[in-house]
């Protein structure tokens, strides 16, 4: 029983949503599902948020390594929670938007979360460089093509791209690096992307069918 009911639910709901595409009166099912999902996700958040607090309180109690930073996390979490749920400092009353300019929630977001997020994102600039250094090496034919494509595109984005091949006559202007770079983006790149996307589409269909038909059940109760 414990096995069968979830599998049945998956089967019925999955089939229903597939069929809904062809039955106009069921057209709203997708929207309905998305709203239900959002509501379920909030409930699940009690588990997640509770877990976060539990982990850090445990760390604190047992004086594990770096327990001091757990205090900071718990504090940050609580401050944001209080600021947001009680709408502290919001202009107007409780009905105003939680992130209205001037509120504590808004200020913390702007001076703490935003710079942290943007800086973490900007680390990519460094990692792009270190990855290029290591990965773009002519180890074999595949890697060489990876290297050449990246190299031409990168060159095409600097003034040297124009300078190096500016002498090539206009009749074969495709060979000039800036043009070549755009050609690569438009032809071989497009072809590769399409093959990958069609493959993904089939992968999704097969995966979904396995889940709906209950062939794949490792996520809820294993093989047996």
């Amino acid at each position, binding site marked *: 029983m414990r096995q069968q009911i979830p599998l049945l639910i998956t089967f019925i709901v999955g089939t229903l949503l597939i069929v809904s595409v062809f039955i106009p009166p069921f057209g709203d099912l997708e929207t309905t599902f998305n709203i239900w999902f959002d509501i379920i996700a909030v409930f699940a958040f009690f588990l997640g948020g509770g877990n976060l607090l539990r982990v850090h309180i445990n760390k604190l109690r047992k004086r594990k390594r770096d327990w001091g930073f757990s205090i900071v996390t718990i504090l940050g979490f609580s401050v944001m929670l209080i600021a947001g749920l009680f709408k502290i400092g919001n202009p107007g009353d409780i009905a105003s938007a939680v992130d209205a300019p001037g509120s504590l929630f808004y200020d913390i977001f702007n001076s703490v979360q935003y710079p942290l997020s943007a800086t973490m994102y900007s680390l990519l600039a460094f990692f792009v460089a270190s990855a290029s250094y290591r990965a773009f090496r002519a180890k074999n034919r595949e890697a060489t093509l990876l290297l*050449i*494509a990246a190299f031409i595109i990168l060159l095409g984005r600097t003034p040297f791209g124009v300078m190096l091949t500016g002498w090539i006559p206009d009749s074969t202007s495709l060979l000039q690096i800036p043009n070549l770079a755009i050609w690569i983006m438009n032809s071989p790149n497009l072809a590769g992307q399409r093959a990958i996307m069609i493959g993904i589409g089939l992968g999704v269909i097969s995966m*979904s069918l396995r889940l709906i038909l209950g062939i794949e059940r490792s996520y809820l109760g294993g093989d047996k």
Partner: protein
Amino acid sequence: MEHFALWLSAFLTLGILSFLYKDNPWYKLSEAIFVGISAGFWVVTLFWDNLVGKFWDGWQDEPMLFVGAALGFLMLLRLVPKIGWISRWPLAFIVGATSGLWLMNYLASNIMVQVMATIQPLFSTGYASGFDAGWGAIISSLVIVVGTFTGLVYFFFSKEHKGAFGGAARVGIFFIMITFGASFGYTVMSRMSLLIGRMDFLLGDWLGMIG
């Protein structure tokens, strides 16, 4: 206050950047703040947007929302060990719905649309200038068709990559590699602008070193 916010932002920005050298207390502090604040941010956002905005403000008009809430409540039964297994029901619901939705969406957007887009004449025709069979255009169209075709051959699972089939698969992986190299190179610029943005903040807004 403004001044404090600026210095706080700069302090946190440098804290994250310090990770590039190595893990250190400054980074750990920034990380701890980040995790705490952002988790709180999302609880609050989900609370107001989803619980209040979608459920509380909506159930009078749409009583079916209670089904969603009930499923959410079943989720919480995990906390009761004896009947914790019931929490699989909402999971099963989500898995079923996600599978159904994605199956149809990907069939339409990834397969049908992409196949359709690949069906182009090898000799391109222009809107105004009529027939054009320049070599450049023909080669480009051929490359797209051959690349898509051989790329799909590469993904074949049930046939060994040997002989002519293996050759085609090899060509396919060549195309895929060019794709990856090109996309990588093309993204560098946008990644650099992110760093330029942060540098502008540090050197300009904070230190005032930009004239």
